[in-house]
């Protein structure tokens, strides 16, 4: 009987084999099972009996192959039970050929939902399986994949229907809820700088840092970043839904997950952020795949956590190496970071600031060193005035998103599908940045005055390219370069 295991955010095939022969009644499971899998024996025995089947009083050995893959969780119950029924001739085997099964059994024969149904359905489809029988609660999610037939099982007794060559009806589908509306950018009043920074970051996929006191709207703005990013393509949405399901947030009604927004607290460990443990579980950056990772209080994250972010920010995926092998997880996210101007939050310029010079200096050094060569733009913000707060709402997300989409379209034409300016290589910058004569002159004459390295210049050019794309300009002009220069990252001191 074919079933599936989850490894990282992918499903891998597992074969459940059963051998029944004469001897003292016994039931053993082999193939690197963990405690939950070993306890499967008791659930299978009870579920079979309570569903009106016989549990063979013979020597039963269940093998989960491949034998060197560690098996965890109760998801193999269903395949083991089905294999026993076929091996003991209680069900016909032929109609089940080409069917894959996964699900946890309840003692009364009911079938409980499991995480990762979408990943499993994708795998069944790729393996050319005829059908996939799984808990009814997971069926809408698996139904997102076209190809294999999906059999929703409410209880073990439904296997009789399947073995008769029919697909059980399953319970009535849950009415699909409309996706909750994303918070809208109209809530951000005043703050033209924060809006502009957000728009540039969204348009070019740039990692951004916003520095300002509490109450300046930093996290309010960050939470609205997903609403101005282009809509997810179906392929991207499937990826996001698959990851959410593996992480324990299955889609109950078969709707695709929205663009993720993850905001881990600064006390998070490096393993929690990038993924870890054994077998590796996805971390925050994988949960933020195709979405936004918001790091509030960037200066307070541990060095180890921030260092661990560097490779994923460059590669769009993270490789976790453990003694038992390496797992690669997707981690293509947009970074949006925020920080207070000093440890107390008010900023060293403010008379209310109670920080000592030494603390301010240490904080500035840590902040300016954090992900130093991964952040493209830095913006200082202040608390909006009372007049701005009581004034009219600003532009809505839809209006900004339309401009962002146009800018993304220009990048797609220039760089290819799914590419953004932030991901330009040095060669692409040289070949296709499209600096006009003035901009070139501004760069050359400015090289010394701004004290930038070659790499620093490339970051400026990427942001300038995005400013030009937002302007609908093919060429990058001197003004675009100047705006990017004003937003560039600087050393403390």
């Amino acid at each position: 009987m074919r079933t599936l295991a989850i490894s990282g955010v992918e499903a891998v095939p597992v074969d459940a084999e059963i051998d029944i022969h004469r001897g003292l009644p016994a039931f053993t499971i082999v193939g690197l099972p963990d405690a939950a899998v070993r306890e499967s024996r008791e659930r299978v025995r009870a579920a079979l009996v309570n569903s009106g089947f016989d549990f063979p009083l013979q020597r039963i050995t269940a093998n989960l192959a491949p034998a060197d893959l560690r098996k965890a969780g109760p998801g193999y119950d269903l395949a083991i039970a089905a294999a026993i029924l076929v091996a003991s001739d209680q069900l016909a085997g032929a109609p089940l050929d080409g069917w894959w099964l996964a699900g946890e059994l309840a003692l009364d024969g009911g079938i409980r939902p499991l995480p990762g149904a979408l990943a499993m359905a994708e795998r069944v489809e790729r393996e050319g399986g005829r059908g996939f029988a799984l808990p009814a609660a997971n069926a809408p999610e698996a139904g997102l994949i076209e190809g294999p037939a999906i059999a929703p099982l409410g209880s073990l007794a439904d296997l009789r229907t399947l073995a008769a060559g029919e697909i059980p009806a399953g319970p009535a589908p849950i009415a699909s809820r409309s996706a909750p509306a994303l918070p809208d950018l109209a809530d951000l009043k005043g703050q033209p700088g924060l809006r502009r920074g957000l728009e540039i970051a969204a348009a070019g996929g740039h990692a951004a840092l916003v520095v300002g006191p509490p109450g300046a709207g930093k996290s309010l703005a960050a939470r609205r970043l997903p609403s101005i990013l282009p809509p997810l393509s179906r392929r991207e949405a499937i990826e996001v839904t698959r990851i959410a399901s593996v992480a324990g947030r299955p889609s109950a009604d078969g709707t695709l997950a929205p663009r993720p927004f993850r905001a881990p607290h600064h006390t998070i460990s490096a393993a929690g952020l990038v993924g870890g443990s054994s077998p590796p579980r996805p971390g925050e950056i994988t949960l933020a795949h195709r979405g936004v990772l918001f790091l509030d209080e960037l200066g307070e994250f541990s060095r180890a956590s921030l260092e661990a972010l560097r490779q994923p920010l460059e590669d769009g995926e993270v490789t976790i190496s453990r003694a038992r092998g390496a797992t690669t997880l997707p981690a293509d996210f947009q970074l949006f970071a925020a920080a207070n101007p000093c440890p107390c939050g008010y900023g060293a310029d403010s008379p209310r600031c109670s920080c000592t010079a030494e603390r301010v200096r240490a904080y500035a050094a840590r902040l300016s060193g954090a992900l130093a060569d991964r952040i493209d733009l830095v913006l200082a913000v202040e608390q909006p005035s009372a007049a701005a707060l009581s004034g009219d709402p600003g532009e809505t997300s839809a209006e900004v998103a339309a401009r962002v989409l146009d800018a993304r379209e220009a990048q797609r034409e220039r760089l290819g599908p799914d590419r953004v300016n932030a991901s330009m290589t040095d060669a692409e910058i040289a070949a296709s940045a499209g600096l006009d004569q003035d901009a070139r002159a501004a760069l050359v004459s400015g090289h010394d005055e701004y004290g930038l390295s070659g790499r620093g210049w490339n970051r400026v050019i990427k942001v300038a390219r995005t400013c030009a794309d937002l302007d609908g300009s093919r060429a990058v002009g001197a003004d675009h370069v100047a705006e990017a220069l004003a937003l560039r990252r600087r050393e403390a001191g």
Partner: protein
Amino acid sequence: MSGACAECLRRGQLLSLLAANIDRSVGARAGERARDLLALGDRELAVAVAPTDWKAALATAGARARQAAAESGTGWVMCPHGPGYPTGLDALGRSQPHALFGRGDAGIVAGLDPDRAVTIVGSRRCGAYGRQVAHELARELAAAGIVVVSGLALGIDSAAHEGALAAGGTTIAVLGPGADRAYPRSAVGLYRRICASGAVLSELAPGAATFRWVFPARNRLMAALGGVTVVVEAAERSGSLITAEMAIEAGRTVGAVPGPVTSWRSSGTNRLLGDGAALVRDARDVLDLLLGPGSAPPQPSGPATTAEGAAVLAALDGGAATADAIAAAAGVGFSATLIALARLERDGYVRGDHGGRWTRTTLAEPGGAGRLI
């Protein structure tokens, strides 16, 4: 080491040796009593702070002085009886230091004319405002050929040294403990750079440990070395106010930089101004105090600015620091403000920091009437 007479060398060693005893005997009133003790002769001093073993202390100090004189160390030493002793210290009268132990260029100290030196002091716990003013003042004074004297402490002192070094000028750090190593330790990088292009000096022999009394004692040296002492940012009861008092006693001019009346950081300097200290807004004010009114060189001015640039500079002068606030005050669009800021930065008018905030440099606009810091 040479350049000082045997008695003065012994005096330096004696202070190092008895530093702990002096600390005990001055107690909490280090500021006043240290000065009185240092005005005593060697024997009286030793008896006063070490009544039981003063004879041994004198003998040990003498032996150490002879040993140190025989060694060729990396530093230098000078005394009132030898060549090069800075004339400014004569103003201290009886509490004048005997030996001066130093590192770096002895020639800077040797030729020091108080009318060509300015002492900049202020709070260790300074704000961004104080740090910026101290840096700019020191940079412009050093660029005008003035020697900047300060104490290597965190905050204002460090900013002043940095400013002078940034201008390629000359700066002298006067340390409380021995001049053979940086105090505070975190300033070791700055200490090395000052040793390389300026001078570091102390009244105590190399190796002397740190006690409370050495700082007010050091302050009287700083107050006497500069013709003008400028207090940049100091709260009430700050040690910088002691330096200002000592400068007045030494017959020097004291200037203070005003700060917001709501800021505790500037309460001491604002009180100094109320008590009659000279108002210091920029380097020209200091040069007027030092060399007489009208003698200051004209302020340098930068290249022409656009109308938007001028509006942005006015907004910065008005206290705006974020691009949002500048755009609002200047009445210019946000992107246009960023563009103007980048050009002003290239031309040297403004500076951005690591957190995206903007500050004005002291560079004047051409044809403008200059500006207040």
